[in-house]
């Protein structure tokens, strides 16, 4: 029984995803709706993303210096900070924050629209809520997530510079030039971008699905919001391992 329920849920969400993908061309035709959503999903996440990026950059520089200085490789601190952020921490931490900041608000908004019969009203007006409400949000999430992840990494590198160069006193020339030599556009930055796009798709999809399928009651919306965070976070961590393994190659 339990397995059947799980399978049914998976099948249901797969059909939902197909519907959502079919509605995407509609969202492309009415771009201003998507732009409004990028504003509300992306812009309002800027502060938390920047603050977290800075904090992670600070800590990475401190911890990295601690380890690297044992091998007399403290000059490589810039490279370590940049690689860790661009390849791994940028997409993953942004994905987790995105699920908590933007995913929950999407789920709650759509769940409450459903509870207030707004989606049913739209349907009775011959407007498909999947096209009018969900598709622009889906597209906005997919666009916003890589931008936020890039911003997270950039701010994190600045944080690493502040701690490594300004506070610890590593040579700024070595900090930047090692980073410039060691980070590959395709292998490292590309790797991070692919991850952040995938996480954007996963988090936004989970949030929209949970909102759309929420029970139309206060408890129902509360549970759906919780599930959004739990499922998105697990999806980000699981997908991260899969993607890292698939794109893994030894540095040249």
């Amino acid at each position, binding site marked *: 029984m339990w397995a059947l329920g799980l399978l049914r849920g998976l099948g249901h969400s797969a059909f939902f995803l197909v519907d959502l993908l079919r509605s995407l061309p509609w969202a492309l035709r009415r771009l201003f709706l998507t732009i409004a959503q990028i504003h509300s999903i992306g812009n309002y996440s800027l502060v938390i993303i920047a603050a977290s990026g800075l904090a992670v950059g600070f800590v990475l520089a401190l911890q990295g210096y601690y380890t690297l200085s044992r091998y007399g490789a403290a000059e490589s601190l810039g490279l370590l900070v940049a690689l860790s952020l661009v390849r791994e921490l940028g997409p993953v931490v942004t994905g987790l924050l995105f699920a908590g900041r933007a995913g929950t608000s999407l789920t709650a908004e759509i769940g409450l629209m459903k509870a207030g019969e707004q989606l049913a009203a739209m*349907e*009775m007006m*011959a407007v498909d809520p999947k096209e009018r409400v969900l598709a622009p949000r889906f597209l906005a999430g997919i666009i916003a997530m890589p931008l936020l992840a890039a911003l997270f990494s950039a701010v994190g590198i600045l944080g690493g510079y502040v701690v490594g160069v300004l506070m610890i006193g590593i040579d700024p020339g070595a900090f930047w030039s090692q980073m410039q030599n060691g980070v590959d556009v395709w292998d490292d930055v590309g790797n991070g971008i692919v991850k952040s796009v995938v996480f954007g798709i996963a988090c936004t999809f989970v949030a929209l699905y949970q909102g759309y399928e929420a029970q139309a009651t206060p408890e129902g919306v509360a549970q759906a919001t919780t599930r959004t965070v739990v499922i998105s976070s697990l999806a980000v961590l699981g997908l991260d391992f899969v993607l890292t393994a698939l794109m893994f190659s030894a540095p040249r």
Partner: protein
Amino acid sequence: MKNDNLVQIDRVTFGYDQRVILSDITMTFPRGKVIAIMGGSGCGKTTLLRLIGGTLTPQRGVVSFDGSPVNPRDRESLYALRRRVGMLFQFGALFTDLTVFDNVAFPLREHTTLPEPMIRDLVLMKLNAVGLRGAAQLKPADLSGGMARRVALARAIALDPELIMYDEPFAGLDPISLGVAANLIRRLNDATGATSLVVSHDVRECFLISDYVYVISSGRIVGHGTPAEVQASDDPEVRQFIDGEPDGPVKFHYPAGEYGADLGLRS
């Protein structure tokens, strides 16, 4: 020959799993009339509206709109049908992120390519018809329940529908708003030449504004006719409903075991 009945419900049965909501219902809604469907809470009135709107499929029987059957599986024709139908939801179901003006403009912007000045004029005309032109820039959160429902009504008639469906338009309104709502339903029906379908349990208001009344109880039609005919009916279920008696064919108690036994007074 043009069909005189805008909507026809022919021997429709509907239920979820074992529970039967509507059984073998036949109704006709002639053009230009206000038809009231009355019955207690949970008797299947709202289900009937959903069947006409095509969000539910009858298990047996046919619902037809303007001569052609409603088919929920055919998206194109269903959406074409819905463009000719306006529906007022019980609590208005206004879009809370849009202003009153944008709510009323929503169907116009979605379904027409009219220039913005023309949409503005149309919206103001619809809002004026419900007496809320002055509230155009308010948000739904700033409106009272009665006002929200009038805005929703303006939105429902934005595309000049042929059929307007009202789901409990009187529920939870104060006496003044109630009189306003009843008056509006009748006036809009006569002014636009639409057909109106009012689902309600408000006996007095329904008799006042409707041309024809159906009384439903536990999924069956127990009485129908003009308001005068229904009021004179001597069917016990109809009488209980319109006189509001607490006990009768519809029991006060939900089916239960013997009271004494539940309290442990007798073994």
